[in-house]
C-alpha cells in the first residue's frame, strides 16, 4: 500500500486521468471483447452416422477459427463466433431434443441436420422458437416445402441433384459415343434408395436408356451375392446403385469377385462412391466408380487445407467437412448483413441477400422463397487411381472421365 501511494505522483495521476477519459470517450475500445455470437451445430456425433458428424464438426470448427482469427464479426465490433455442438445421436427424437438444448443455450441459429429424418423434426422444433436453421446435406425435398420461415437449405435437394445427374449422364454417354444402352438399378428400400429408383425409372427410358431390371434390397444387407449374380446374368452396360456406405462397398466388392464388369457404375449420392475410406480400403473395387454428389470446389486452396486437417487427425475426408465449413461462412455473412445476432434479423438477412458459398461450387448462394439455395448443385466425381477426381462440370473438373471403364 505504502509503496503505491509513494509512487503516485501528481504527474501519474494526471496521466492516468487523461487515459481514463479517453477510454470513456471510446466505449468500443473499453469493451475489448463484445459478447460472442453462439452458433449451434446439429450433427450426429454418436450413433450410426457418427463419422459424418465428426467430419462436419471439423469443417465448422475450422471456419469458426478462421473467422475469429480474422477479427470476428465486424458489424458487431469484432464479436467472436462460438460453436455449440448438439448431438443428434443419428435419430430424429434426439435431434429434436438436441435442438431444444441448443435453443436453451441461446444460439443465434442452428446449422446442419445431416439426415432428412433428423432435419425434418429438428427444423420444426426450431420453428417453434423462430430460430433460424440452415440445413446442410439432408436432401428430402419436403424439408423446404412446409412453409417454415426459419428453415433454409444450403445444399441441393433431391430433385435438383437428380436433374443434374441425369443431364451429366447423357453428356457422358454422348461424349463417349453412346456405349450405354442398358441400365440396371440397384437400390436400398428406404427413403433415399427407393426415391431415387423411382425417379430413374421415370426419367431414364425417355433419354434412350433401357432399364433391364430394378433390384431392391433392405439396409442393412449382409450379402450381395444374389444381387450380383442377377446382374451378371443381365449384363447391363451401366449399373446405377443407390445405397449407404456398407452396402455400396459390399456390392462393389462382390462385383469384383464375381468378375462382373459393366461399362460404368454411376451413383447419385452414392454411399461410398465418393468416400476416401472406400478408395483406401478397396482401391480395386472402387476403380472408375462415378458419383454425382455434394463436393467442395477442388481448386480452392482451402479444400486442400481441410483435407490436410482431416487426414492429420487420422480420418478419411468426405464432403461433410467442406459443406459445414462453408455453412458457417454463409452464417457469418448473414450476421454481418443483419448487423445483429437477433434471430428475426438473421432470418431476414438470409432470405434477402446473396452470399459467397465458401468452398462449395455454388457461385453465389441465394435462398429462394421456400428457403432452398437456388444455385446449389452437385458435382460429378470418379475414382481414379487412389484419388477422387471431379470430372464434371468443366469449370471444376480436375480430370477427364475414364469411360467406359471396362473396354
Amino acid at each position, binding site marked *: 500500500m505504502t509503496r503505491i501511494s509513494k509512487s503516485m505522483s501528481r504527474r501519474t495521476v494526471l496521466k492516468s486521468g487523461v487515459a481514463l477519459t479517453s477510454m470513456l470517450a471510446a466505449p468500443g475500445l473499453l469493451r475489448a471483447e463484445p459478447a460472442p455470437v453462439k452458433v449451434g451445430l446439429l450433427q450426429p456425433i454418436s450413433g450410426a452416422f457418427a463419422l459424418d458428424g465428426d467430419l462436419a464438426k471439423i469443417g465448422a470448427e475450422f471456419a469458426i477459427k478462421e473467422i475469429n482469427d480474422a477479427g470476428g464479426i465486424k458489424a458487431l465490433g469484432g464479436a467472436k463466433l462460438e460453436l455449440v455442438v448438439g*448431438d443428434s445421436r443419428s435419430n430424429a427424437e434426439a435431434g429434436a*431434443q438436441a435442438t431444444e438444448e441448443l435453443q436453451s443455450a441461446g444460439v443465434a441459429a442452428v446449422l446442419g441436420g445431416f439426415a432428412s429424418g433428423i432435419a425434418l423434426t429438428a427444423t420444426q422444433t426450431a420453428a417453434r422458437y423462430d430460430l433460424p436453421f440452415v440445413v446442410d446435406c439432408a436432401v428430402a425435398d419436403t424439408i423446404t416445402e412446409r412453409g417454415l420461415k426459419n428453415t433454409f437449405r444450403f445444399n441441393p435437394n433431391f430433385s435438383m441433384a437428380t436433374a443434374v445427374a441425369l443431364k451429366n449422364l447423357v453428356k457422358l454417354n454422348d461424349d463417349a459415343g453412346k456405349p450405354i444402352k442398358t441400365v440396371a438399378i440397384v437400390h436400398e428400400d428406404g427413403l433415399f434408395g*427407393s426415391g431415387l429408383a423411382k425417379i430413374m425409372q421415370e426419367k431414364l427410358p425417355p433419354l434412350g436408356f433401357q432399364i433391364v431390371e430394378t433390384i431392391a434390397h433392405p439396409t442393412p444387407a449382409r450379402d450381395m451375392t444374389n444381387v450380383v449374380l442377377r446382374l451378371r446374368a443381365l449384363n447391363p452396360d451401366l449399373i446405377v446403385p443407390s445405397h449407404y456406405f456398407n452396402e455400396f462397398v459390399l456390392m462393389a466388392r462382390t462385383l469384383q469377385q464375381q468378375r462382373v464388369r459393366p461399362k460404368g457404375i454411376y451413383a447419385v449420392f452414392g454411399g461410398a462412391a465418393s468416400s476416401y475410406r472406400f478408395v483406401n480400403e478397396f482401391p480395386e473395387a472402387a476403380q472408375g466408380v462415378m458419383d454425382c454428389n455434394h463436393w467442395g470446389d477442388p481448386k480452392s486452396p482451402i479444400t486442400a487445407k481441410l483435407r490436410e486437417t482431416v487426414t492429420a487427425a487420422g480420418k478419411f475426408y468426405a464432403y461433410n467437412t467442406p459443406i459445414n465449413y462453408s455453412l458457417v461462412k454463409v452464417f457469418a455473412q448473414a450476421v454481418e448483413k443483419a448487423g445483429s445476432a437477433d434471430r428475426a434479423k438473421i432470418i431476414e438477412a438470409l432470405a434477402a441477400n446473396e452470399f459467397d458459398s465458401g468452398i462449395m461450387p455454388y457461385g453465389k448462394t441465394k435462398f429462394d422463397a421456400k428457403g432452398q439455395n437456388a444455385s446449389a448443385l452437385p458435382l460429378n466425381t470418379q475414382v481414379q487411381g487412389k484419388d477422387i477426381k471431379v470430372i464434371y462440370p468443366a469449370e471444376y473438373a480436375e480430370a477427364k472421365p475414364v469411360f467406359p471403364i471396362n473396354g
Partner: protein
Amino acid sequence: MTKPRLATLAIIVAALAVIAFAGLSGALLNLMIFMMIIALAAQGWNILGGYAGLSSFGHAAFFGAGAYAMAVLQTRFGVNAWIALVIGIALGALVGAFIGFLSFRSGLKGSYFALITLAFAEVARILANSWNFTGGAAGILLKLQTGLPYLQFADRRYFLLITIGCVAIGLVVSWWLEHSRFGAYLVALRENEQAAQALGVDVFAVKMKAIAISGALTAAAGCLYAQNYLFIDANVAFGSWISIEALFAAIVGGSGTVLGPLIGAIVLLGLGELTKGLSGGIPGMDLLVFGIILVLSVAFSPNGLVMLMKSLGLRAPAKAKEA
C-alpha cells in the same frame, strides 16, 4: 405386496403436473414429453407382459398403428386431431385383437409369442415402408399448426399436460387391474395357465381383452409421438427401438406393478440425459456409462426399481428399531 392407493397415484400425477409448470426450459419439457410417451407405451406393454406374463417384442406394431392413424387421418382425410387420436387408440386395440386372435387361438406363449409379435411388427414396418398410402419410405409430415383443435400447442406445457393425463389413465387402468377380478384372472394365467383354466377362467377371452387394452395404451403413445414430433416414417413408427424402449422401461421399473413403467421410463431417459454430461468429449462415452449403470441397476434390483424401493423402505424402519 402392498398395492399403491389411488390417492398415491393422484399425488404422483399432481406432482408431475406441478413440475410441468415449474418453469422448465424447452429442452426439459421436451424430455418430459418423451418420458411420458415412453411411459405410456411401457404401461401398455406392462398389461400384457407384466400382468398376463405374455412378453411381447413387437409393441411397435401398436405404437406404429397409432402413429400412422394419427398422421394419415389428419393429412389425407383432414380428420380433426382429437378424433384421429380416438380412432388411433381404437385401431391399436383392433390390431391387438387381430394379433391376439391369431396367436392365442394356436396357443402361442413364451418365446413363441414374443417372436410372433416381433414378426407382426416387422411386417407392418415393411408394409408402411413400401405402401404409397402411408407415404412409403418418405414417411408423413404433419403440418405445424398450433391451437387446441389441432392438438398442437405453442406452449409445450399444455401438450405435456395431455401426455401426463394419458399416463394417469394408464396408471388408473393398472390400478384397476390390481383390484379387479379381471386383473386376478390375468395374474392367475401368468402363474399357471392350466390351473386357471381348470378353475373356470376363460383363458382365450381374458388374453384377448388384455392384448386389446395393451394395444390401445401403446397406440395412444404412438398418436402422441406423431403429434409431438410431427414426422413419422416406417422405422420410427414400427421400428424395433420402441418395442425395446417399452419393454425395457417396464422391466427396469418393475413389470407387473402399477408404477413400474412410469418410474422405469423416467429413470432410463433421465439417466440417458444425465450421462450426456459425463461423456468427457468422447462421442458415445455417455452411452457406455449409461449401459454400465443399467447393468448394475438390473443386477441389484432384478425385480425392478419399484421392488428395490420397497425393500429399501422396509429395511429402513427395521434398522431404526435396532438403533
